[in-house]
């Protein structure tokens, strides 16, 4: 069914400013198909079922709204002490000079534009494929737009245990930049890969990552979205998770006038695990803050385990949204699905909306979900203060404590500690005004 006229107009207005890259090679067909899907679905509006709590207008409009660049020069960078392979993008454009050579034992790693010029079967079988699969039953037109028009990206295949994480560093230097990046990740059997992402990337960022974790593979993802107050981001992670394999993703978000992070994961092999987690700190003091986590996990195999752990700390009118679904298909027996979404509201002006969904067609499963919204624990606060800890520091300690369950989903201790250290530093900076 074609989209309504008003939607078609908005969609055409957005598409008008975009061009498919020259020499898209084997990706050309996928891009054209994606464009057709975008036109058919139309870009989202507030009236769409999964956009009721988040207004997509600024993510859809023809050009990126201006976003001031956050000055973090005097701050220790996220993942600064982690030994990793750095891949730098400036306003969505790969910067070879600032990046490490794309070379590491156990990995095949290339720029998307280079990869499309050669015949890489696995990448061809992935580009736009997971994204297409992820359009059903919930439309994700911004992801299809990405597949059609992505201007850059990285293609990685892990054939063994990667010796260190691969880190995408997304720098934002132009106040009106509008970046569309598309990454492909394939983790082969017995292989293990950690992808890190850090930075705002652009004034407006549309990112899509398609991930295929083969049987017995392991994929880890830790992300810190940039602190630029006015930045906007719509990100999608589409994953296919094979038997005996592991998929883990954690996102830290502090600041951002508009963020929509979607996860679409399909567990297709037996005995596999998928964990997705997020910790968001929203403060509407300097710019408004709206953060939306939308997760869809499908169990289509035996003995699968999944966890969704999302925590949000909101103040000064900050808005948090969580939409999380667990779909257990017929025959996916012994599925263990867990979902928790919680918000800590530090004042009466902030808000949190949660829409948990369970849809289960197997009869021998254990699925649980919970969602809470609460204020700071006054008893704990008094206990800390009675020992001499000032109210603001005590509050921050309780904030970190509240986020701990999500942060604990990061498997690597070094990465976990790095995230906690950065978080504490940011909170300290905030206390100092």
């Amino acid at each position, binding site marked *: 069914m074609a989209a309504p006229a008003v939607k078609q107009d908005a969609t055409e207005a957005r598409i008008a400013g975009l061009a498919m890259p020259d020499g898209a090679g084997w990706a050309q067909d996928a891009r054209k198909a994606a464009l057709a899907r975008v036109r058919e679905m139309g870009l989202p509006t507030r009236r769409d079922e999964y956009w009721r709590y988040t207004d997509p207008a600024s993510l859809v409009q023809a050009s990126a709204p201006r976003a001031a660049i956050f000055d973090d020069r005097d701050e220790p960078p996220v993942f600064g002490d982690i030994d990793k392979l750095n891949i730098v993008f400036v306003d969505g454009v790969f910067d070879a000079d600032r990046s490490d050579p794309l070379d590491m034992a156990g990995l095949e790693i290339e720029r998307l534009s280079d990869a499309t010029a050669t015949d890489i079967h696995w990448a061809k079988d992935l580009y736009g494929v997971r994204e297409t699969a992820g359009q059903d039953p919930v439309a994700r037109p911004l992801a299809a737009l990405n597949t059609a028009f992505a201007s850059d990206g990285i293609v990685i295949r892990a054939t063994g245990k990667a010796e260190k994480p691969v880190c995408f560093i997304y720098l934002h230097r132009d106040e009106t930049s509008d970046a569309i990046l598309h990454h492909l990740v394939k983790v082969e059997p017995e292989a293990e890969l950690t992808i890190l992402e850090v930075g705002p990337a652009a004034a407006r960022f549309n990112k899509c990552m398609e991930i295929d974790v083969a049987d017995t593979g392991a994929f880890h993802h830790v992300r810190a979205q940039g602190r630029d107050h006015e930045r906007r981001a719509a990100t999608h992670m589409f994953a296919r998770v094979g038997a005996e394999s592991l998929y883990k993703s954690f996102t830290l978000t502090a600041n951002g006038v508009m963020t929509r992070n979607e996860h679409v994961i399909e567990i297709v092999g037996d005995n596999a695990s998928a964990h997705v987690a997020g910790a968001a700190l929203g403060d509407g003091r300097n710019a408004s803050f709206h953060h939306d986590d939308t997760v869809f996990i499908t169990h289509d195999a035996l003995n699968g385990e999944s966890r969704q752990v999302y925590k949000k700390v909101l103040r000064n009118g900050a808005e948090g949204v969580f939409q999380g679904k667990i779909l257990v298909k017929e025959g996916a027996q012994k599925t263990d699905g867990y979902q928790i979404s919680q918000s800590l509201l530090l004042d009466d002006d902030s808000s949190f909306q949660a829409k948990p969904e369970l849809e289960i067609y197997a009869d021998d499963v254990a699925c649980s979900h919970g969602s809470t919204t609460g204020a700071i624990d*006054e*008893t*704990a606060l*008094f*206990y*800390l*203060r*009675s*020992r*001499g*800890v*000032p*109210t603001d*520091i*005590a509050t921050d*300690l*309780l904030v*970190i*404590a*509240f*986020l*701990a*369950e999500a942060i604990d989903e990061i498997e690597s201790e070094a990465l976990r500690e790095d995230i906690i250290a950065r978080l504490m530093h940011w909170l300290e900076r905030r206390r100092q005004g």
Partner: protein
Amino acid sequence: MLEIKGLAVKLEEEDKQILKGVDLSVEAGKVHAIMGPNGSGKSTLSYVLTGRDGYEVTGGSATLEGEDLLDMDPEERAAAGLFLAFQYPVEIPGVGNMTFLRTALNAQRKSRGEEEMSAGDFLKLIRAKAKDLKIDADMLKRPVNVGFSGGEKKRNEILQMAMLEPKMCILDETDSGLDVDAMKLVSEGVNALRDEGRGFLVITHYQRLLDHIQPDVVHIMADGRIVKTGGPELALEVEKNGYADILAEVA
């Protein structure tokens, strides 16, 4: 050290007077005990002195070394040297015991204009003090009081007291939930802190704790007032005859 004069307190939310004029003076170097039946206002007194929300002071005063306590925030009272060992120590998931104590210690030092303690010095100090209280390294690393037994929680309170070195220590039913061995350990911890410059106010139901922490002065509290004050023998009298006789005598 601690001077309480005519302290009257009601609950903020309801019209219920809990303390009806408490007069109490704890000198430096002395241990005072407060005993009394349930509902007499003992715990309320400890909470009001440390600044917990939910109470309204309707009259009287409380000072620590001449400083008006009631005018200060809880953290300022702590920095001024007041410490409450809680009857029910609070579990704080996600906040490490060490992080908590180091933050508290350095915040107090900072507010007194003293230099903060380095991570190395802190570690050395806490290891030594924890050893005395038979608190192992694992307990120090765990989140504050989470998964601690009743006895471990009380020992952790005493550890905090030992680290923060307050001038005035209030122990609110520290003996509740302790077995004999734990009581001994906790009492030894408290006795080790007894010092000429430090005052103690020990709130308890039972004489038993006072066998280990011997008080200089014993007060009986009932219906929001101190109704009788005496020496250690008063505690023995309570143990033997209960509160009924004393309350009848002062009624």
